[in-house]
């Protein structure tokens, strides 16, 4: 099963597209206070000892590029939800 998600557009902007075999997310935070939450998402994946599950790149002006391996897509969205960066999750 896959997940579909909704987020608060006042807080952030989230774009998703295909990058080779992976899925790429471009996240722009409208509120700097949310940085801490996205760092926690990164830390979650850094602790699991898989090096290529997500690739996390920081760009200026609170823009984040995250390349997510297909088999970690659901986990990534769930972690965004856990940090309240995504406000609604639906299994489809």
């Amino acid at each position, binding site marked *: 099963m896959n997940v579909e998600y909704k987020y608060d557009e006042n807080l952030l902007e989230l774009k998703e597209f295909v990058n080779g075999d992976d899925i790429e997310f471009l996240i722009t935070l409208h509120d700097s206070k949310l940085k801490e939450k996205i760092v926690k998402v990164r830390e979650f994946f850094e602790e699991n000892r898989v090096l*290529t599950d997500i690739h996390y790149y*920081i*760009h200026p002006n609170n823009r984040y590029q995250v390349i997510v391996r297909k088999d970690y897509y659901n986990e990534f969205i769930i972690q965004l939800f856990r940090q309240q960066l995504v406000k609604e999750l639906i299994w489809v």
Partner: protein
Amino acid sequence: MSTQAIIAIGVFLITYAFIVTEKIHRTIIAMAGGIMMVLLGIVGQEEALHHIDFNTLGLLTGMMIIVAITAETGLFKYIAIWAAKKVKGDPLKILVVLAIITALGSAFLDNVTTVLLMVPVTFSITRQLRVNPIPFLITEVIASNIGGTSTLIGDPPNIMLGSAVKELTFMAFINNLTAISFFILFVNIAILAFIYRKQLRTSSELKANLMDLDEKEEITDKTLLMKSLIALTVTILGFFLHQLLHIESATVALTGAFLLLLLTGEKYLDKAFLKVEWTTIFFFIGLFVLVSGLIETGVISLLADYSVHLTGGDVTSTSILILWVSAIASAFIDNIPFVATMIPMIKDMGELGINNLEPLWWSLSLGACLGGNGTLIGASANVIVAGLAAKEGHSITFGKFLLVAFPLMILSIIICTVYIYLRYLV
């Protein structure tokens, strides 16, 4: 030869065979071998403890603590991205700069630690540029082993040598090995860059994306970074001055480590101690006791006697023999037990009439450290990187590595032969 000596050789060879086959973890085997030496009465417990080199163990532990805490700051990711941007995101140039960073890191940190810090950021950069990470990983492994050769603290064989021979100080390693190591490094990088040049191409759009990265954001804790840099500076300064200050290298490393813990507080104590590779520390303890069995029963003296007889006590032939035997042996077996066996043997050669031991020590260091580049199993860093790469779906096979690395290792040893001959033997 006494019965005790024959038993000691038996225990040593069985242990060595198990270490080479890697069927059981090397730490368990080395400790079992060491314990057997004591249980069979080859060495007493007090004698065994006397043979454990606590300077080597202290140096390793201290550096592991410093690195464990410093790694938390994001410093290594910052450096790698900063360097990649400095070369405008060009993959070929990134291969070169990451190799140089790895070599510099390995000169002051443990090789395995350095590659463990470099591999994640390498995957990250190569994924961003959509280039094959394998050329980068192979180059970094080779650079790590060469960089480790350049200082007393860079590679376990050097730590053991510096600890066993008073004259081989931190500055002695800098004066004798750093320049030649970096010369060999640049020759290796140039050849690897030429071999892999066609695989290292990317689009200008992806380069631009990399150039847009904000490396400063990678620093997660600026206060911790400052404290880590203070401790690292004190430690490195300490290594440069340890001979002048009449303190051992282990004291320097442990001072740095506990200064850092003093600055950071209890918060990092457990974390830092958890990251100390206790398996490596106990591997050393087992080996020291194992080799003590050979020393105490006179086997090492016999081997030294035989080697001197073989070379006629000539310094030139003995040096070249040690260099090449160390290199070939280290390409296939762990260089730590090899060096642990060779150190007392070379000391005995001194007592058997070879007056100038200096070229022999440097030959052993260069051979044992650079020999590790010969095969995928030649050094711990190689095995670790290959394992990580395979787990992530990028297989570095034994053959693939051998094809590239073995000729480079032979070339490195040829350069060392010329260096040893011209600098110490003419």
